Every structure is written in C-alpha cells, then in structure tokens.
C-alpha cells in the first residue's frame, strides 16, 4: 500500500480523498493556490504545499508544479479527484515518468475512452448504441452547420475534452449555430485548454442514467449499478439518486453489461462512469465515459456500502477487487443535492464572498461532503460547489423526507446559495413521481415561481429579526459596508486574516 498520496485538487473532493487516506493510514499531501491557503483541504491534510497564484492555469493545472511537490514530499501516488487535470492523459504520463502511481486509468485508456468522439466509435465496436452525430471534432463550422441542417435541429455542440456541461450548447435553429459554436469553443478552451467541439443529435425528453464501474488491474470489471442524473440545469447535474426510479432488473443488467464491455474494450482500470441517455421507450444510448471519480459517487456509496475512493486506491496498489458483482446488494435509496455558491433568484450567477454563518445538518441518514467553513472566503476563481448533501432512506420517499429535513437545517449566509432551488424541486409533483428528463429543470425554471408568503409567521419573525439586527448594527458597522466587497477587497481581507494576530 502507498505511504503518501498527493491530492492534485481542492475543495470538497480533496477533503473526501484526505478522509479516505486517513482511514487507510496513508499520509495525504495537499496543494493550494494563493487564495486557498485557508481552505479546508489545507487544514485537514497531513501536509500542504503552495503551487502558485489563483488562476488554475497557473496552479492546479500545472503538472510540473505538482511533480515538484510530489518529489519534495516523497509521494508514491497521486489522486487527481475530478475536474482540473483528472481527464488529461498528460498527467498519468508525467506520473509514470516520475515513478508515481496515478490513481486512475492509463493515459492510453483515457485517450481511448475519455474523448467523446473516440469513446463513441469504441462503443459502436462493442455493439453499444450511441446518439447520432459527428464522430470527429468539428474542423469546419460551416460544414458542421450543414450536417446539423441534414440531421435536423435541435442539435448539441459538445467539447471533446468536456464534462460538467462546460463548452456545451444546445442549438435549436440555424441562426444560433455559429454564435453557439464560438461560445462553446472559447468556453472549452478556457475550461480544458482544448477548443475542439463536436455535434450530436438532440433526443426529446431523455433521462441521463449512468453506470458506475470498477476495474482492477487483473482483468476483473464489475458494475456497481446505476445513478439517475436527469435533473440538470443547462446540462449540469444538480440532483443525483440511486437506484433510478425507472430501472428494472433486466434493464440494469443490460446497461451494466454494456458498460463493462466498453470498459474492457478500452483496457480500462480503476473507477469509471459510463453515461447513457435513456429515451421514453427505455432505449439507451452511450453518451460518454468519465474516466475518473464522479462528483455524485456518494449516492452509489450509500446504497452499496462501498467506499469508492478507498477502492480506487486499493486498485491502484494492485489489489484485486474484493467482491464479485453478484455480492453487491444495493440497499435502500440515496439522493444527493449539489449546494453551490450561486443565486437562483438572479440567473444562477456565481456568488463568491465570505461565509458569515453556517449551520450544518446531521443525524440519521444524512451525509455532508463539504469543503467550506464559517469565516472562509469562497474564491471567485473556481467552480462554486460548496458541499454535497446526501440522504439515505429505506425508500425514495423517506430519502426525500430526510433531504427536505436536512435542507431546513442547512444554512449558509453571507453568500447566495441554491438551497431554495432544492426546496422547490423536492416539492414538485413531477419530481416526486420521478417524471423527469434532462430538460425538465430548465423548463421548470421558466415557469413563474411564487415567493415565500409574506403573511406567514416566518415573515413576521424575519421582520422582527431585521429590526433587531438593525438595533445591534446601526451603531457599529456601516450597513452598506459589504457594497465594497470587491475581489480585491476580499484578498485584502485574506491578508488581514493572515496578519491576525
């Protein structure tokens, strides 16, 4: 087993990996950019080293800096988490050059499966259906536009290196095509350092269902069952659950087998996720393979009882999978909501800033994977995911009841969060019946939303609290002080923090 693992990431996933390392008795080595010195993953890690300024291209995306830290700290393995370099084949290559075990697939498997276009042709090779579209990155936008016209709108533009909805655009008519192409390319360039995008037919009311697989280095590949991720905002997952409410044992078997075939065909090793679209007739189409740990891995952990991060580490250390697929018996129902620093009332704009107060839920059936704390300043430079709140219950109904209860307990002030969005979704009849698809949430958000009833007692309490707050603050801090909360001001506060005492 490894002695020291370098965690090439930040935020909640870095914390998640630190916890796995600690439970295995492995030292966890964190890295941090200038604005992350006070971040939770730095506080919790065994060691932590600076890797440069805030912009990720100058810190978390710098392979040479990571290798330098690995050498200095004497690491024998590296975990990439998700995002940043997690799907960049250059990282596993650099690791093997540095005699560092990469906790994930080989660079070759990443290339064979990670790129959407390569993955799709490989899937076809093992008789897994895919969504119609261009198989290659778009060289000539005009040609692609012509193809889109032949396939018929709507179509999707997707970053080849993509993930998480970044560099993705839905194009519903001819006029939108070229501007959408420009946006997608530049976003893809910014997010992944690669502007290539490709074209794909857009299915009506599809569900997003993905299969979690594990492959060890001795040829065993198993499926841990599916996750339902159809609740998405602009192609970004916001709620995930397992099992999928529409799943049947037969369909689960077929999709699981398909996922395993694809992984085998690509010579895949370690944890991976095979994403499918499932249409209203329960036909499934291979979408892409994520050659890394998923944000939503906890829902699979809660129903299987397995610790995917520890299994990733064991697989990388050459261990054999300690179980056969047959032995995995998912139990109950798990659901995750992604809590973001963003403002649902204002077009979901990111809302960085200082966390003034925080109340965390706990108790039966509740798990919180968090990367923040009260007093911490959420930087503007990275993905605004604050925490993942996961509930488990014996039934989907109990799970939703617990999630609602926990959301009532959860509170972060000082920044905007999307908790109100989840309060709304978890009360929607469509969602409770699980009559959802990948566009369901976007459509819901177009409908008018009634604000909290200001006649209720809670509005009375709020009014009283506002007056009490005014009493206690009119004398002290200027009420419009936060107005000057510019980024520079925040950094100033950061330094202030450093300076204390």
């Amino acid at each position, binding site marked *: 087993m490894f002695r020291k693992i370098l965690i090439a990431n930040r935020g909640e996933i870095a914390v998640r990996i630190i916890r796995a390392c600690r439970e295995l008795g492995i030292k966890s080595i964190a890295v941090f950019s200038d604005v992350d010195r006070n971040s939770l993953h730095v506080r919790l890690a065994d060691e932590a080293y600076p890797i440069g300024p805030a912009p990720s291209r100058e810190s978390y995306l710098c392979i040479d800096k990571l290798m330098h830290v690995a050498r200095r700290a004497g690491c024998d393995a590296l975990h990439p988490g998700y995002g940043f370099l997690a799907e960049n084949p250059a990282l596993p290559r650099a690791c093997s050059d540095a005699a560092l075990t990469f906790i994930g697939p080989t660079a070759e498997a990443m290339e064979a499966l990670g790129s959407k276009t390569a993955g799709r042709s490989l899937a076809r090779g093992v008789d897994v259906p895919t969504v119609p579209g261009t198989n290659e990155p778009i060289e000539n936008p005009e040609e692609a536009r012509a193809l889109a016209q032949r396939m018929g709108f709507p179509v999707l533009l997707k970053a080849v290196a993509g993930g998480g909805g970044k560099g993705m655009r839905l194009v519903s008519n001819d006029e939108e095509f070229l501007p959408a192409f420009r946006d997608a390319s530049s976003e893809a360039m910014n997010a992944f350092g690669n502007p290539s995008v490709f074209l794909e037919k857009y299915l009506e009311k599809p569900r997003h269902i993905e299969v979690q697989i594990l492959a060890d280095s001795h040829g065993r590949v198993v499926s841990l069952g599916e996750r339902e991720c159809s609740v998405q905002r602009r192609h970004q997952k916001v709620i995930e659950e397992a099992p999928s409410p529409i799943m049947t044992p037969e369909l689960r078997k077929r999709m699981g087998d398909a996922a395993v075939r694809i992984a085998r065909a690509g010579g895949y090793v370690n944890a991976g996720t095979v994403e499918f679209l499932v249409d209203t007739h329960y036909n499934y189409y291979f979408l892409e393979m994520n050659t890394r740990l998923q944000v939503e891995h906890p829902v699979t952990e809660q129903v299987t009882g397995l610790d995917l991060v520890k299994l990733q580490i064991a697989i990388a250390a050459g261990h054999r999978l300690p179980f056969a697929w047959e032995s995995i018996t998912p139990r109950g129902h798990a659901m995750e909501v992604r809590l973001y620093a963003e403002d649902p009332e204002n077009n979901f704009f990111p809302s960085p800033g200082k966390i003034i107060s925080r109340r965390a839920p706990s108790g039966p059936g509740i798990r919180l994977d968090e990367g923040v704390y009260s007093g911490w300043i959420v930087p503007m430079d990275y993905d605004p995911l604050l925490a993942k709140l996961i509930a488990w219950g014996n039934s989907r109904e109990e799970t939703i009841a617990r999630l609602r209860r926990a959301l009532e307990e959860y509170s972060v002030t000082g920044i905007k969060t999307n908790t109100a969005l989840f309060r709304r979704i978890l009360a929607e009849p469509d969602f409770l019946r699980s009559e959802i698809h990948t566009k369901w949430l976007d459509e819901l958000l177009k409908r008018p939303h009634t604000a909290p009833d200001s006649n209720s007692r809670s509005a*009375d309490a*709020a009014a009283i609290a506002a007056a*009490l707050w005014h009493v206690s603050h009119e004398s002290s801090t200027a*009420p419009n*002080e936060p107005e000057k909360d510019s980024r520079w001001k925040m950094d100033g506060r950061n330094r202030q923090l450093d300076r204390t005492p």
Partner: protein
Amino acid sequence: MKYEVHIGGKTRVVELAWSSERWSVSLDGVALDADAVEIATNTFSILLDGESYEVRVAPLPDGSLTLHTGLAEYVAEVADPRGWRGRRHGALEAEGRQQIAAPMPGKVVRLLVQAGDAVEVGQGLLVVEAMKMQNEIRSPKNGRVEKLFASEGQAVNAGEILAWVD
C-alpha cells in the same frame, strides 16, 4: 424603538422595547407574545406565541438584508425615524435610466453591443465569465445603449456599473 421594515412587498412596523431583561415586540401596532434572543452573531431565535423561528441575517451590497429561515429567504429594508444614509439616496440615483451592474466579480469576455445600439428587452449586452462559467447579461428594457463602461478582458467587481440603457 420603531422601525419600518420593507419585506415581501409589504411595509411592516416593528416596535421594540427593552424591559425586564427581554425585548417586548409589537408588529403593525399589535403587541406580540414574542421571546427574541440573539443566539449567535447575526442569528436570532424568536418564539412567537411559542412557535420557534430561527432567522439568520446577512447584509447585501445595497444595504438591504437577506433573512434566512429554515424554509424561506427574505430580502428586507429597514428604516427608522432618523432615516438611513446612503440607501434611499442611492435608490434615487438609479432613476432616469437603467444601470446594468455586474452581479458578481468576474471578467468581461465579450461585448455584444456598442454604445448607441438599439436593444430589446432580454437582448444580450455582454458576457461575463466567473468560475469558468460564461454568463450573458441581458437588457432589462427596450431602449438604447446610452453608455458602455466595460471593455473586453476587463475585470469587474460586484455591483460595478457596466452600462446604461435608456
């Protein structure tokens, strides 16, 4: 102490008096059986006829307050007889034209209009990027782009005015 609290589209009148170690509270002229304590900074526990409410308060850039309860969030403005510098005045300033402000710190990556252009409500004015997400800022009204303060590549702060639309 007497306060006007503008909340949920209404104006409530809150009267507070400190007597015998606790606050006595009246709302819109009606005395309440209320027990209000500050549990922690910016966090108030309020028992109204026994009903337990916890309200967490956070100020907004414009000087108004967000109020979080377990189930709802409110935005409120508080005024007292002595008035409150800045905000009312600030509100007046905004009149006469629509100011387009950056809702968060970020970087202007693309201008979609120029000063003088006619724009329709909902039409994209410029694209701001923050946390890797690109967001189009749209016109709140039909009219003309009177002034454009932002330039491509420029870093902008929360609340910073990007354009005027008239």
